[in-house]
């Protein structure tokens, strides 16, 4: 169970403090796939950095299985929009990075790496360098690398935001399958409402300035989702509802901005 309790983060910048997040309460049961949507600047990346433990909150706390998060660790894997793969390591050795830090027999490590490579469709590229890969393949490496550490929670920060539409759909199917195969909890942030509704069991809408939870909606779609699910009336209705919410908070935020 991942819990965010009245979580707040204030940055100090020239011209005074900036409240990136305020009073965020959220609990994610084990194994759930939660998507957080919000406009750019609503604090999505800050939220994930706090859960990852890369940034310390200025209020509240993050708890994983009851224990407060005090720093980063392999129980909370993180995938950035631009992958952040190690360019000098082959695909295989990227995926092995976290395992190389553990006292694990070589054969065991290789076996695990091979499984995650197969799961993410990278077996044929295992000896390739990142520069030889497409954007989608690099994201797969980043996902496989995080999953190989067996995280309790997988944190995804707009992981498909830089991909073309077709690749993005492939990756959406991939992440759903991986989630079902590994049973890990997934907390994903995105500004793409369609993606959030298609992937999540639950969609959390963030309002901007300060970032806070504006809505927390269950997604009532079948667990087995094909791309065709994006045409179901239930899907379209849900998507419209979330889009309206995001738009409303975005407008309200823009009207507050000084010109």
């Amino acid at each position: 169970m991942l819990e965010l309790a009245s979580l707040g983060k204030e940055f100090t910048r020239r011209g005074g403090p900036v409240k990136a997040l305020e009073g965020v309460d959220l609990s994610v049961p084990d194994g759930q796939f939660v998507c957080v949507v919000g406009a750019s600047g609503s604090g999505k990346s800050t939220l994930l950095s706090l859960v990852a433990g890369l940034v310390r909150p200025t209020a509240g706390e993050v708890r994983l299985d009851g224990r407060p998060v005090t720093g980063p660790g392999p129980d909370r894997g993180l995938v950035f929009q631009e992958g952040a793969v190690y360019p000098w390591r082959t695909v295989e050795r990227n995926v092995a990075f976290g395992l190389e830090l553990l006292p694990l027999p070589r054969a065991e490590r290789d076996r695990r790496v091979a499984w995650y490579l197969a799961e993410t469709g990278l077996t044929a590229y295992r000896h390739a360098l990142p520069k030889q890969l497409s954007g989608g393949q690099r994201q797969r490496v980043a996902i496989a690398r995080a999953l190989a550490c067996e995280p309790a929670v997988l944190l995804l920060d707009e992981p498909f935001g830089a991909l073309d539409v077709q690749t993005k759909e492939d990756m959406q199917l991939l992440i759903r399958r991986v989630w079902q195969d590994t049973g890990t909890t997934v907390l994903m942030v995105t500004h793409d409402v369609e993606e959030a509704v298609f992937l999540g069991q639950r969609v959390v809408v963030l309002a901007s300035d300060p970032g806070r939870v504006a809505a927390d909606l269950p997604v009532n779609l079948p667990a087995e989702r094909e791309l065709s699910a994006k045409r179901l009336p239930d899907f379209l209705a849900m998507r419209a509802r979330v889009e309206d919410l995001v738009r409303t908070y975005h407008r309200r935020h823009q009207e507050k901005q000084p010109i």
Partner: protein
Amino acid sequence: MTVVAEKAPPRSLPRRRPPRVRGLWGIRTAVPPGVRWTLMALSVAVPLAAWQVLSVVVDGRPDYLPGPFEAVEAGIEMARSGQLLTDAWSTVARVLQGFGLAVLVSVPLGILMGSFPAGQALLEPLVGLLRYLPASAFIPLLIIWLGLGEPSKVALLFLAAFFFNTLMTADAVRRVPLSLIDVSYTLGARRGEVLRKVIVPYALPGMIDSIRVNAAASWSFVVVAELIASESGLGYRIVRAQRFNQIDRIFAVLVVIALIGLTIDLLLRITRDRVGRWV
């Protein structure tokens, strides 16, 4: 929403003729290999030919400006006696000591400066200031403190490379993307592991680049040091040749200095390209 106040301006902009994009002088346009090799050959052949012509034209006094052939002849003669090899080796050995020491100290300091803002705050003001003191300005001090022998030369070479290499190493380290460091922590790496397994490998090609640039500087400084005071080395050989007005020998030594410099550069470039294959 924007409000359109008036009609759009009439479509009446003047047109210019298209730019020259391709051809031999197109910006960033590859030239055919044949042309490329020809140009590269010309870049060596033309100055050599000019040298030869000049040496004949200027030849008022017999050995005022010897031509390339005479220089090579003098070089061969010096090489035969074994003198050239001894000189070249003592110069190279000085660079290996002075510059090698500078690299050994500056690389860890640069990593410290580039990785830790505290280290940067601690070192940058001093190192950033001292690098603007030309190493040659230290020569009198070094001679007073360390004498005319080897230590002062090694120290000069150290000073000539140390400050710049520290700052350039720090720059290479600072180019490591923060996301790569953050992601490593989330994969379970400790601070030392992030330094060893992420920062150093990522910055390595940049660090070799920095070494390459500063090796060139060291190579010119060693000759300066030898011109001033020494009993061996290529710089010393130039001074000797000057004393006996053997201008052809001076040219021969210059050619050797250039060739060794080129070799050092080439070796470092090959190393960099092998290490940085992933770039």
